[in-house]
């Protein structure tokens, strides 16, 4: 960092982060950054250009292509397809119903799992941590299939559900279940390390000072973990909106 402060900075404090390093967020890479700049320029720029080329071909071109195809026939057609087409409207409405329900379910699960795992020791704790990750390694198609096997007409609960007039598979509840399954670990996985890093001291103090469980959670725990929750929600929502395999099996 010392090497870079040669340019005059208007603020007289020498400590602030130089503008060159906002990207990685954590701010611990500064020392390395200086160190990396010692590489010969050829290596440095060669590697940088290679990495840029990778991201360009793999990500930028496809994304640009999506938008260019969407807008190829002009904004009017685009607008018409989105707003005036009844099927599209129904599909968007359905996605916007299913994803939030799945997200809420996973936030409730994520917060309680993180609280139990980060704050207490109990038998089976490691197993629980492992099981939370399970949906990540299960194929979305299998995720859809298992719900068909449970609630489909040929499934274990299928006949009972039909007799009582419930419809789960090939209907919104089936979509919600499949989506919630696929995005199950996101919030919990995000929150457990955050809660462990924060530590229980503030919560202990709150309880000692007479806060009720709910007060402690709302005033102490939640403010500490809110960014973790938000990041988990974003990841969860992105995956929920984009999920195709699980949903196509349980709702075709």
């Amino acid at each position, binding site marked *: 960092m010392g090497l870079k402060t040669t340019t005059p900075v208007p603020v007289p404090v020498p400590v602030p982060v130089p503008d060159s390093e906002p990207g990685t967020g954590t701010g611990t890479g500064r020392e390395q950054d200086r160190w990396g700049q010692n590489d010969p320029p050829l*290596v*440095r720029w060669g*590697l940088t250009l290679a*990495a840029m080329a990778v991201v360009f071909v793999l990500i930028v071109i496809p994304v640009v292509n999506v938008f260019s195809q969407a807008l190829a026939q002009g904004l009017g057609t685009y607008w018409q397809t989105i707003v005036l087409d009844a099927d599209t409207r129904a599909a968007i409405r359905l996605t916007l119903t299913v994803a939030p329900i799945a997200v809420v379910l996973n936030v409730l699960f994520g917060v309680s799992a993180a609280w139990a795992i980060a*704050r207490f020791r109990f038998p089976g704790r490691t197993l629980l941590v492992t099981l939370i990750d399970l949906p990540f390694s299960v*194929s979305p198609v299998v995720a859809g299939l298992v719900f068909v096997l449970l609630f489909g007409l040929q499934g274990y609960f299928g006949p009972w559900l039909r007799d009582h007039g419930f419809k789960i598979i090939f209907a919104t509840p089936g979509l919600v279940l499949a989506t919630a399954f696929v995005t199950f670990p996101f919030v919990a996985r995000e929150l457990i390390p955050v809660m462990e890093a924060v530590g229980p001291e503030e919560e*202990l103090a709150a309880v000692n000072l007479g806060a009720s469980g709910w007060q402690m959670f709302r005033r102490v725990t939640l403010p500490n973990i809110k960014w973790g929750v938000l990041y988990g929600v974003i990841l969860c929502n992105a995956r929920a909106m984009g999920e195709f395999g699980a949903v196509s*099996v349980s709702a075709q």
Partner: protein
Amino acid sequence: MSTVNRRILPGFSLSLGYAVFSLSALVLIPLAACFLKAASLTWSEFWAAVWNERARSAYALTFGASLAAAVANAALGLLVAWVLVRYSFPLKRLFDALVDVPFALPTAVAGLVYSSLYAPNGWLGQYLVPWGIEATYSRLGIVLVLTFTGFPFVVRTVQPVLEGLDADVEEAALLLGATRWQTFRRVLLPALTPSLLTGFALAFARALGEYGSVIFISGNKRGETVIAPVLIVRRLEAFGYAEAAAIAGVLLVTSFLLLACINLLERWGRRYGA
């Protein structure tokens, strides 16, 4: 240690109870149903369902393509993570954000876009197809979309470890006369290996189950570009629920084993203070 006596902090039984309830209702019971259904087949029926010619070629393709994509991800991800941590260059922030795009783009859209990009009249295909490189409706295409969907995993697991490495060790290596390349290979790479392997395993696991993007680019040619999840869907469409469950069981067991490996790797990686 963040362990606290259960009598002091509230909510232990409530939170654990709810967590276990959700886990059972949403994940464990449904998965058990899959094994139960597969178990309704006799042994020879089960074997016929999971080990016929079509299934074998589907497994081979699924594992081969996923492995190739995960290897590509490990190499490219290490490169991108390295550049992001070590060098500063214009638009670095945007570049960093772009890495997460594959997580946000619906995989079905990714499959569609890739197949249109590499089609003979696509943006990239018009230059590649004359050279004999056909990435739509081929195995190459499958590897390509799997690389896309798994791209962020390696970058995001290696990046924090690379940031946390002490410059001292490297400095020492250089002072002792090692070249940059030697330092990288002998000092940095061993410290990065656990996180690299974790990212690799995550990308591999994700690729094994990927469906949405692959069906749009593979063309699903029988015995050639049919992946295992597609086989499950085919069985399901023919109302062969038990056969579908049997193939799903094979995939499930494989991914459980993989998950166990990931956990071991993470435990190993913690020794390096990742």
